[in-house]
């Protein structure tokens, strides 16, 4: 679960990590007062759940209250498009107005889970302010890593090793070690899957500060995280994805015209791949899950059909725990309830109660094409275009 920059910074600050002074505003009338706190010398930053905002004009340095107001007026309540968003972009509901600092050096610091090692790792680099992906590609030796033993946690000697490796001035070592250990505490206590501080700045006054911060919380641990300041901002999410999420469906919107409905994440990805290989493009990833009932399948079809881009539907079900007749009933119910014309539905059903499912679909007369395998499925999908 992604957090906004201001939430990540509040989390860090709560755990004793220094961050610049700042204020979040959500209406234009608040800008002047916020900017005045910094004598107009501040940075105006859009709060969105997507990277690349700097390059897209979402981060602006201003030097007067008037300019702050002008910039805020251009950004607030508009949509911003970055290389990580859809072409429509994401809404800018909040701005962070932050003091501008004199930075003498920028570092990179992050804490994340390394699945291969099965451990939490800390990554640090002297190449701060750049995307770490790029650094990893261009100068991999500039990335330092330490692995955390889950039994003892991050050790201060490991932080000291990093401080040395990063070439940080000895006078600042204790500041760096404290900052890193506190960041680690924030990570562990709030069940984060990522905290990234980039850049971690060394100011001309010799202070270490988290100038930009990203944090994500492990969705599977939300049941034990009760901090209300860590709420998810669902306004950043397309309506259709929000509906899917609240219905307990795993759904990701894509750009194609073949709506896919599948059980199981792996098979859902496979179905998208097969669709693409056949020269068609998937409109979405959708996993109805193993324990779906008729209502959930109904909801899933409804969500598929609510995407105006969907011109045909590919249902691929390998019945295990999920019975094919249950899926068929859900499809029929949704097709019959649909207020808009239902596009052709190509259905492949195997496994538990597949015959019953196919019979239900055949008899419902809702324009279903029953196929037996992937090859036949893709041929049918292509013939429908």
């Amino acid at each position, binding site marked *: 679960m992604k957090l906004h920059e201001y939430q990540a910074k509040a989390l860090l600050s709560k755990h004793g990590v220094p961050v610049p002074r700042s204020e979040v505003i959500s209406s234009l009338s608040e800008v002047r007062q916020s900017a005045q706190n910094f004598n107009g010398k501040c940075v105006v930053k859009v709060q969105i759940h997507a990277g690349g905002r700097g390059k897209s004009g979402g981060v602006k340095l201003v030097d007067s209250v008037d300019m702050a107001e002008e910039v805020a007026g251009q950004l607030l309540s508009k949509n911003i498009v970055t290389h990580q968003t859809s072409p429509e972009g994401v809404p800018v509901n909040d701005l962070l107005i932050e003091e501008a600092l004199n930075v003498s050096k920028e570092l990179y610091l992050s804490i994340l889970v390394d699945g291969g090692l099965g451990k939490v790792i800390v990554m640090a680099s002297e190449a701060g302010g750049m995307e770490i992906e790029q650094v990893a590609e261009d100068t991999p030796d500039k990335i330092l890593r330490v692995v955390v033993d889950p039994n003892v946690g991050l050790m201060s000697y490991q932080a000291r090793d990093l401080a040395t490796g990063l070439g940080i001035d000895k006078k600042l070592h204790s500041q760096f070690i404290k900052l890193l250990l506190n960041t680690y505490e924030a990570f562990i206590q709030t069940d984060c899957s990522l905290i990234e501080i980039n850049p971690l700045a060394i100011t001309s006054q010799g202070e270490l500060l988290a100038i930009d911060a990203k944090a994500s919380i492990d969705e599977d641990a939300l049941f*034990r995280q009760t901090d209300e300041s860590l709420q998810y901002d669902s306004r950043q999410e397309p309506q259709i994805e929000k509906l899917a999420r609240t219905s307990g469906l*795993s759904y990701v919107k894509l750009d194609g015209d073949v709506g896919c409905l599948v059980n199981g994440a*792996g098979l859902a990805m496979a179905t*998208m791949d*097969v669709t693409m290989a056949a020269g068609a493009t998937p409109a979405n990833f959708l996993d109805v899950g193993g324990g779906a009932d008729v209502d959930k399948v109904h909801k899933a079809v409804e969500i598929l059909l609510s995407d105006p881009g969907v011109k045909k539907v590919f249902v691929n079900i390998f019945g295990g725990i999920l019975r094919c007749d249950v899926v068929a009933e859900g499809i029929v119910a949704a097709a019959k309830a649909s207020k808009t014309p239902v596009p052709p539905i190509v259905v492949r059903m195997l496994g538990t109660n597949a015959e019953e499912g196919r019979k239900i679909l055949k008899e419902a007369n809702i324009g279903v094409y029953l196929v037996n395998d992937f090859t036949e499925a893709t041929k049918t999908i292509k013939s429908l275009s």
Partner: protein
Amino acid sequence: MSIFVGKETRLLVQGITGREGSYHTSRCIEYGTNVVAGVTPGKGGQLFADKVPVYDTVKHAVLDTKANTSLIFVPPAFAGEAIIEAVDSGIETVICITEGLPVSDSIKVCDYVKRSGAKLIGPNCPGIISPVDNVKAGIMPGHVYAPGRVGVVSRSGTLTYEAVGQLTPLGIGQSTCVGIGGDPVSGSDFVDVLNLFEKDDFTDAIVMIGEIGGTKEQEAAEFIKSEVSKPVISLIVGQTAPPGRRMGHAGAIITGTAALASSKVKSLEQAGAFIVPSPADIGSTTKQALEKN
């Protein structure tokens, strides 16, 4: 013979009286699995399906029934502890079906299990099935599988059924099928399972199904290159997945170039694996690989 489970498997089910636990226990028994005990705290003393004794603790169940393998269906908030309870009670192989364990729990639990010398499959996995020995310790539909000499290992449940659904009609039976699970951190990885298949005299070839996210497939490729003599047939799904989005599985997210399907395919190709070009071709590619060897 098979890996992880076999004729000597004496299965214990943790969470046997729950909705999923009871349903799947019955299916496992039907398939021929020797289910010797169940555990649900507070329900000790009952009998499941009129024959399987239910206990309050794993320790008691193991003492009474000599259970050596555990299948876990308890809710995510308690699953981590259930794994540790099993290991502390002397269970050698723990299979955790539960989806949704917090990653920080998985990290601690996997580390604990490794140090104990026990084996953990999962969490968030479909389990293990051996058609050769008629043992099913998992949630897969048993009728799809047929005994034979191909081992299957996968991060995904339904995609494994798909793979097997393509193999069986071609007359390619399976020795053991292992689902390692879709979480970023899991008890056993491809490398662990490949290692066991390589040593298993009853497995001639290995079908390995991976997906986007993490680097488990690259680690497998390294291992295949140096340690695996048997043919490996590999499919990687998620070629069309957009970066930065979680595709259902907690671990299936592209966060860097290594997590891309294409870089995984490249590593496996360089390691000498037979690459399945499209999910439709799992059966045919395996057939060709077997004919070549």
